[in-house]
């Protein structure tokens, strides 16, 4: 205790000593408030610039160039040509629409089922530890492997799912939905739901466990039914966490090409092509990096708009 007060005093002394040593006047103020802080920040700024800003700038600059490895002599600046092509590209707009179906189809079920699981895991029941451990399992499996496994499950020759769906009357006959352009997207979506539930279950469970139990007791005494406790206490407490996880997850899913790439490769007939897989095939199959970069910039703009909207909603929720 004594030594702490002594050291504090020393720190004060040094601080005042420094202030006195520095030249007074407008030049000193400029130095202290405008330049000095950035000097201290410069290592971090340089690092961020190197690993984030530079690649981003290079990527964006690619979208204004023609970089096709198959025609190396044609490369050079082309202005907005890539974007003009994009505007009239039917495949792009198809992938654009598919991205919405893929993202929000996956997200809604991942979130709904993840929240349900979190609520379940937040109650006391026998075998809870085992279930909690099992919940993590989909994460331990590499995405590539789960994609293959799900592709097999949907294959009527070796997998049971088509037969179950037919038995339930959801399918006319036990066919492979991955081969049906009208249904193919639901194959990777189902795999993605399975893959993404743990994320929501675990983050929402952590948020649930931070709600003081006494609030529920107070609400119960105030006459609240379980549903009213959920809507008036649980949801407001979860709202900030929901907003941030939904945002992160949306961005992640929109960029997540692995499952689709392995399960359908974007087909049949581009029916499962999303922007992320379209970028991938354009860049690495057609080797057209300029055009791929233009698609990537379009996807980035889309996600930025989405994030901004969600942040606005979040702020409104947190205020009330």
């Amino acid at each position: 205790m004594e030594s702490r007060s002594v050291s504090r005093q020393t720190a004060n002394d040094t601080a005042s000593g420094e202030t006195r040593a520095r030249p007074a006047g407008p030049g000193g103020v400029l130095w202290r408030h405008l330049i000095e802080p950035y000097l201290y920040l410069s290592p971090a700024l340089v690092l961020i610039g190197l690993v984030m800003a530079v690649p981003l700038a290079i990527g964006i600059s690619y979208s204004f160039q023609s970089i096709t490895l198959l025609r190396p002599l044609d490369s050079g600046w082309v202005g907005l040509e890539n974007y003009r092509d994009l505007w009239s590209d039917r495949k792009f707009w198809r992938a654009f629409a598919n991205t919405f179906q893929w993202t929000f189809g996956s997200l809604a079920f991942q979130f709904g089922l993840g929240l349900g699981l979190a609520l379940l895991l937040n109650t006391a029941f026998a075998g809870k530890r085992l279930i909690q451990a099992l919940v993590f399992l989909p994460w331990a499996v590499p995405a590539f492997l789960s994609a293959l496994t799900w592709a097999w499950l949907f294959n009527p020759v070796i997998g049971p799912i088509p037969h179950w769906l037919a038995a339930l009357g959801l399918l006319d006959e036990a066919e492979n939905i991955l081969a049906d352009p009208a249904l193919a997207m639901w194959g990777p979506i189902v795999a993605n739901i399975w893959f993404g539930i743990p994320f929501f279950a675990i983050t929402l469970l952590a948020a649930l466990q931070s709600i003081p139990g006494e609030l529920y007791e107070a609400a119960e005494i105030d006459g609240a039914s379980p549903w009213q406790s959920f809507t008036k206490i649980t949801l407001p407490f979860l709202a900030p966490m929901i907003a941030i996880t939904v945002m992160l997850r949306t961005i992640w899913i929109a960029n997540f090409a692995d499952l689709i790439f392995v399960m359908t490769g974007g087909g049949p007939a581009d029916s499962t092509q999303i922007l992320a897989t379209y970028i991938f095939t354009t860049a690495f199959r057609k080797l057209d990096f300029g055009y791929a970069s233009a698609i990537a910039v379009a996807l980035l703009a889309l996600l930025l708009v989405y994030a901004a909207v969600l942040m606005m909603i979040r702020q409104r929720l947190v205020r009330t």
Partner: protein
Amino acid sequence: MARMELNGIAKAYGTVEVMRDIDLVIEDGEFVVLVGPSGCGKSTLLRMIAGLEPITAGDFTIDGERMNEVPPRERDIAMVFQSYALYPHMDVARNMGFSMEIARAPAAERQGRVAAAARTLGLDTLLARLPRALSGGQRQRVAMGRAIVRDPRAFLFDEPLSNLDAALRVEMRLEIARLHRKLGATMVYVTHDQVEAMTLADRIVVLEAGRIRQIGAPLDLYERPANRFVAQFIGSPTMNILPVTAEAGAVRLADGSRIEMPQARPGASHLGIRPEHLEVTDPGEGQIVGTADVVEHLGSDTNIAVSVAGIGALMVRRQGTATLRPGDRIGLGIAPGKAHLFDAEGRALRPAPAD
């Protein structure tokens, strides 16, 4: 209106029994205080009354209706928690009116009741604040306001003042007494502070290790404690307990002094005397002689720790100031009729004619 009846209530967590044989009737409009040391089961008993804790055995009725399996929201009881349990995401007005919001009462009626309660508690200017922007005392008032707006048939309090500083505690204590007089509702109040118990209660229930040791009006417990535990728990400073040997019509202390007591009979093992019932005399007078060790001047009173050869330390309380100094030899006289006698099991021995 609420008359509560607890018949043979017991509570066990798994195989651990924490409470048994609780028989208690709380009359309509009565202010009952549950008091006892930490861990004796006060909160558990209160939570069983509220319905937050299942009752392991026994019957609990309100106004003759069995309540054991009735959920809290149907018991029509309000509770003020020790930690207040305010909803942190709702402002003061919404916190206070939450029970009416739940019941979908008309907004105008709700605002009216909240405003009335806020006026009573001096919260008018704070209605738009969130709980985290309130002081401890203000939060405590909001918690009380929430209970008042609820307009229940009974109020439960679980150590509502234990997080407040001393001055605020006295103020809120008066506030609660005033509230009880104004509303006339049944109130059950848990505390470990015997001063709160003595000042607020119509009747006090003293608990120890999950069992009721005595039920009675505050002065009853003070003047006629049923056992050593209650005798020492009620009153401050604590009652002095001295081992004695019984003789006919008197007891003999360990230092050899003889004290006449009509209730003395074979089996008496301890004498209890409150610090305020020991009179300081000149050495040689009184029944006991000792040396003042510590003299605490409280202004209105003086506490004197006296060490007596063969007996040990005794606490003496004198009204007003005393000119004593540590090291002074003094005599102590036991005020006639004020000493208590207990048998080896700690039960109080009473003079034959009384009860």
